[in-house]
């Protein structure tokens, strides 16, 4: 009898545990991320109260990681009501599955690779081009061009062909098809001129004034200024610890462009439609000589080479950074300095006779992220309707600027500027956010008509002046070369990947060692021979082909 009792008790315990598990599971499943926009669920082709046809779509994307402004609470935000109205008017009923962004990459990789039970529209930005093109080849992703031709009301074409003529070039696959929609961004000045911002060397303005130093006008003067800041103890802590934070392992630091160098192993010279490599450019040896001097003088902080963001932040917080390479309009570094400080963006400085210093610009037009329609989409017409809604002027306004009078206003020149409604925490309470904060980077593509006027209105005059000076500056290189290259085909991609694996390692090691003087410039021919052996020339050739194809796509 005792055994019976015991087995019954243990069986009951097991049932209890399992029961608890199932109960928790089902209750939480209902109340969470996969919440429908409307409570009554209708099948595709059903009709809503107004009698209009509604179509149901399932969307999968990452959640925004903002602690205060959450997509789950979208209904309390005025901007969402407007967007929701646009979608309802288009006859769409959307079912969202939002996955935490930190987890999204793994989730999307497994889901797409398994290829079963896919949502209609999915954000596949986390997948690289090879994976995406393979999925397209397997038929998991639909070719969008015929669908656009057949179903679109013209919005998509207007944005892609008129407003953002660069978009097609970056999203047309080698087979001539288009498999994903993208985030589109452009920044203009005075309503029409493209307005690139620059990445440049920033120098402590308050230290210049404190030590009565002139703004340097050449590379040589720049070095002397750094030296003076250190030797005269600009931060006043009694130690000679004022340094330049600069990563010599790549060419992204703006000093490289003073010597006329590109920004990557292969860089696009946009104006001349040519792919160049800094390793072959004239100023390269002088550049390394200059860095060697900086390192020898102890001005370049060698302990930070290859350091993490946190380590660099530490130097910044401790008030030791005299100069660094960053956006000319940045305003996020200054508040982190203990005791405060100001960074002055420098114009490109002359370094070598015969070489005009170049600027490094962020392209004023950006195309990034991927949003695709999958093979499991039963109603492609509705999916295209969704994207027609997204690529409308109204949506673009709601997304980037929000609601006039609430989140943005017009300044005297008629340009949009944001209204400062406080921190994220306050915004979450008042609900006065532009759409981008609430649903940007999820499964809703961004369509951004940014302007320089607002950027300039929130920075000190010396930063604004630098931006206006650099606006039409030539020559320049861009920080995102990939934006000017067409999507490579299988073979090109394979070759590129193969070459880059070894070449980038070799290049960054070589650059670091040359900069620190651990390798001599005397053996230059040997280094170039090594680079050639690793496929540098072939890489330039492929990228040139991609650039040519990019320019040929209409």
């Amino acid at each position, binding site marked *: 009898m*005792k*055994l019976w009792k*015991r*087995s019954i008790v243990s069986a009951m*315990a*097991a049932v209890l*545990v*399992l029961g*608890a*598990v*199932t109960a*928790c*599971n089902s209750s*939480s*499943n209902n*109340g*969470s*991320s*996969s919440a429908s926009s409307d409570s009554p669920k209708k099948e595709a082709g059903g009709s809503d109260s107004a009698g209009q046809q509604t179509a149901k779509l399932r969307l999968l994307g990452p*959640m925004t*990681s903002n*602690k205060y402004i959450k997509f789950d609470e979208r209904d309390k935000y005025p901007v969402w009501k407007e967007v929701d109205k646009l979608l309802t008017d288009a006859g769409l009923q959307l079912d969202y*599955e939002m*996955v*935490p*962004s*930190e*987890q999204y990459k*793994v*989730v999307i990789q*497994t*889901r797409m*690779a*398994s290829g*079963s*039970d896919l949502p209609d529209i999915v954000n596949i930005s986390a997948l690289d081009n090879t994976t995406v093109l393979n999925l397209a080849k397997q038929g998991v992703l639909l070719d969008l061009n015929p669908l656009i031709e057949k179903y679109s009301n013209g919005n998509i074409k207007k944005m892609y062909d008129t407003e953002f003529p660069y978009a097609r070039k970056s999203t047309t696959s080698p087979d001539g098809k288009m498999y994903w929609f993208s985030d589109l*961004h452009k920044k203009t000045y005075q309503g029409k001129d493209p307005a690139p*911002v620059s990445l440049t060397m920033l120098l402590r303005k308050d230290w210049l004034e404190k030590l009565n130093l002139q703004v340097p006008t050449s590379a040589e003067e720049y070095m002397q200024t750094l030296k003076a800041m250190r030797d005269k103890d600009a931060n006043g802590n009694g130690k000679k610890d004022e340094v330049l934070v600069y990563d010599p392992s790549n060419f*992204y630091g703006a000093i490289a462009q003073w010597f006329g160098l590109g920004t990557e192993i292969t860089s696009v010279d946009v104006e001349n439609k040519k792919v160049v490599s800094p390793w072959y450019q004239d100023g390269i040896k002088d550049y390394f000589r200059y860095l060697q001097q900086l390192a020898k003088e102890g001005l370049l902080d060698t302990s930070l080479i290859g350091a993490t*963001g*946190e*380590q660099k*932040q*530490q130097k910044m*917080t*401790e008030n030791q950074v005299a100069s660094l390479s960053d*956006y000319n*309009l*940045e*305003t*996020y570094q200054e508040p*982190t300095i*203990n005791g405060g400080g100001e960074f002055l963006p420098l114009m490109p400085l002359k370094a070598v006779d015969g070489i005009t210093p170049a600027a490094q610009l*962020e392209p004023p037009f*950006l195309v990034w992220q991927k949003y695709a329609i999958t093979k499991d989409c039963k109603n492609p017409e509705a999916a295209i309707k969704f994207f027609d809604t997204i690529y409308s002027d109204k949506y673009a306004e709601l997304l980037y600027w929000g609601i006039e009078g609430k989140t943005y206003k017009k300044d005297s020149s008629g340009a949009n500027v944001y209204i400062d409604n406080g921190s994220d925490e306050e915004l979450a309470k008042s609900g006065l956010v532009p759409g981008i904060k609430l649903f940007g980077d999820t499964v809703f593509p961004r369509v951004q008509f*940014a302007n320089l006027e607002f*950027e300039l209105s929130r920075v000190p005059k010396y930063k604004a002046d630098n931006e206006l000076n650099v606006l039409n500056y030539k020559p320049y290189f861009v920080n*995102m070369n990939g934006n000017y290259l067409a999507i490579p085909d299988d073979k090109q991609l394979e070759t590129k990947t193969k070459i880059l694996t070894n070449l980038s390692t070799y290049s960054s090691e070589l650059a670091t060692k040359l900069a620190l003087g651990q390798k001599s410039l005397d053996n230059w021919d040997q280094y170039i021979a090594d680079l050639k052996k690793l496929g540098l020339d072939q890489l330039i050739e492929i990228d040139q082909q991609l650039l040519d194809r990019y320019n040929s796509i209409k």
Partner: protein
Amino acid sequence: MATVRRNPNRIKQGSVAVDIILYAIALVICLITLYPFYFVIIMSISSPSEVAAMNVFWFPKGFFLGSYELIVRDTKMWWAYSNTLIYVGAGTLLNCLTAVLGAYPLTVRNLKGRKWVVTFLLIPMYFGGGLIPSYLLINKLGMYNTMFAVIIPGMVSIWNIILVRTFFTTIPEGLKESAFIDGASHLQLLFRVILPISKPILAVIAIYSIVGIWNSWFDALVYLPNEKLHPLQMYLYRVVVQQSVDLKMLSLEDTKNAVANMLSNIQLKYAIIVFTTLPVIFTYPFFQKYFIKGALLGSLKE
């Protein structure tokens, strides 16, 4: 004293100097082991600006409990906590059950093909199916995005079965035979005779499961896109991973947001580590003696 020292036959007591050196080494090892814990704790209570500057080494600088306040107020954290308790509770119970049920037949002497089964068991211990096949299986079984996706696949541990089997084989055969002579069935033998004297091994399995499940997050990463089902370690993973963004690839506006995010998270990370690790650290002392037993079991094969 002098005479004692000259006695060649005395039992050597070891020299004081060597003792001191050994103690010193032990102390250093202790410090090396404990310092990371200590570091995380003092980072979590120092003032945020000192933490961002990485200025804290030996003692907390300033005093700030804001990060803890933020965590305690976060409902997501409490969700994760309760989920972990469910996963640990259910997982541990099922693990013990399957281990006992799996191990017992393998100790029955006249069971045909017993050796073959034991060998067969070793295969999945070393080789898995891979991520995508596992995903497909879980998905087809309808367990994707449910708590079962984490509990069911982890409920059988072959390592545990082998541990229990090894323990069962140490039980004298005579005990089993006498039970049979008294008319016991296999079930009766298992539950009334063997289990009562197997508490040590059950404790070992329980603690292995508790610690293992408490620290696991990967299954949740793959199978649970719904954050309401996330265990505590997944919550921690998200906070820690969130801030490691490659700033170089972002445009001006995005960089601004990412930097703000990064700074607010530096301290939070430490507070969460303390919060998620403490419970499992506190269970260790209670199970310590069983842990040692578990380690010994492997060496006691007959």
